[in-house]
């Protein structure tokens, strides 16, 4: 039951993009087409789950017992950068098809603050290992959902004639605001 609550809360109520403001850069950057949005969502889900698992284990087995909590930021960012490289190499070797689909997005992910954000959040909220993994997967699904919805709207928006100053980013931000407002309707569900 707890896991279902974590899932609903991370996907809808506390959506990582629309209510936590993490991962805005890819949200605005790679959301012009639904296909690329799906690819980015999948790549983030992949890396987020693995990196949360690894950073959690490092925190609990190395940093906490030795009182090195202050090294958290440095350790996590290096581990994430390293993992992204590793995932890229492994995926390239094992499944060229998957690499074709995710390849472009993988290097972008190390600077996605959602990944580091989730890794730190899990520690701050004092979750168990399984809860953390469920939380990471759900958050990534929430990210993908927001990205795909937004891409769908932007595909339509590209056909509209707008006042000159409003073209591009301003309109994208206002649409994102309306989307966030829609997601606020979920608050109180959990």
């Amino acid at each position: 039951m707890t896991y279902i609550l974590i899932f609903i809360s991370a996907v809808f109520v506390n959506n990582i993009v629309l209510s936590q403001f993490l991962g805005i850069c890819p949200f605005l950057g790679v959301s012009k087409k639904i296909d690329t949005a799906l690819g980015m969502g999948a790549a983030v889900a992949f890396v987020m789950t693995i990196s949360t698992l690894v950073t959690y284990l490092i925190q609990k087995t190395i940093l906490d017992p030795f009182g090195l909590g202050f090294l958290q930021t440095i350790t996590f960012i290096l581990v994430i950068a390293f993992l992204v490289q590793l995932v890229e190499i492994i995926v390239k070797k094992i499944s060229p098809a998957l690499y074709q689909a995710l390849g472009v997005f993988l290097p972008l992910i190390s600077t996605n603050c959602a990944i580091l954000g989730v890794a730190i959040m899990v520690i701050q909220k004092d979750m168990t290992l399984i809860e953390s993994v469920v939380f990471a997967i759900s958050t990534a699904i929430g990210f993908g959902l927001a990205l795909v919805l937004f891409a769908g709207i932007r595909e339509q928006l590209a056909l509209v004639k707008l006042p000159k100053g409003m073209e591009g980013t301003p309109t994208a931000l206002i649409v994102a605001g309306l989307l966030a407002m829609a997601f606020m309707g979920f608050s109180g569900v959990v």
Partner: protein
Amino acid sequence: MNYLKTFTNGLLKENPTFVLLLGMCPTLGTTTSGMNGLGMGLATAFVLICSNIVISILKRLIPDKVHIPAYIVIIATFVTILQMVMEAYMPALYESLGLFIPLIVVNCIVLGRAESFAAKNNPFASFLDGAGIGLGFTFALTLLGSVRELLGTGNIFSFRLFPENYGMLIFVLAPGAFIALGYLIAIINKLKSKNA
């Protein structure tokens, strides 16, 4: 190298938030009030200035192949220092900015300036560039924070301008951040096209 130009470049022409559109996460996430925006901006400026200076001093010693990880370690070091100092001396601000302090590490502005400016220029110019960009970012965050605080609660920096009942709460919540920033950028685009 014109030092004054280096400094003002970040304030106006290459304002990281309104023109380059970098570092959107803290821009939207921490600007619930003018004070928070100012705090976050200054925190980022501190990291930016320090990392710019250190990277431009060490640029000859860092091998080219590992320069990105090396830059990240330098940036993360200053973020950790900042975290500890803020926790000790400004616990209230540290509490309200929360997760976004460690996330300065992945702020694209900091790494972006290291890569595009500090790696090519002398320490003094890098310091000015860091200060310019940092203040530009601080200005943008403070402006957005004040606008949201005013529309949402009727205050600016906790100074009451109209009764709270008339405030639109939505501007303090998540959707208001997107909408307020969208309109601010639209206004700035409009002003720029008039000047040009």
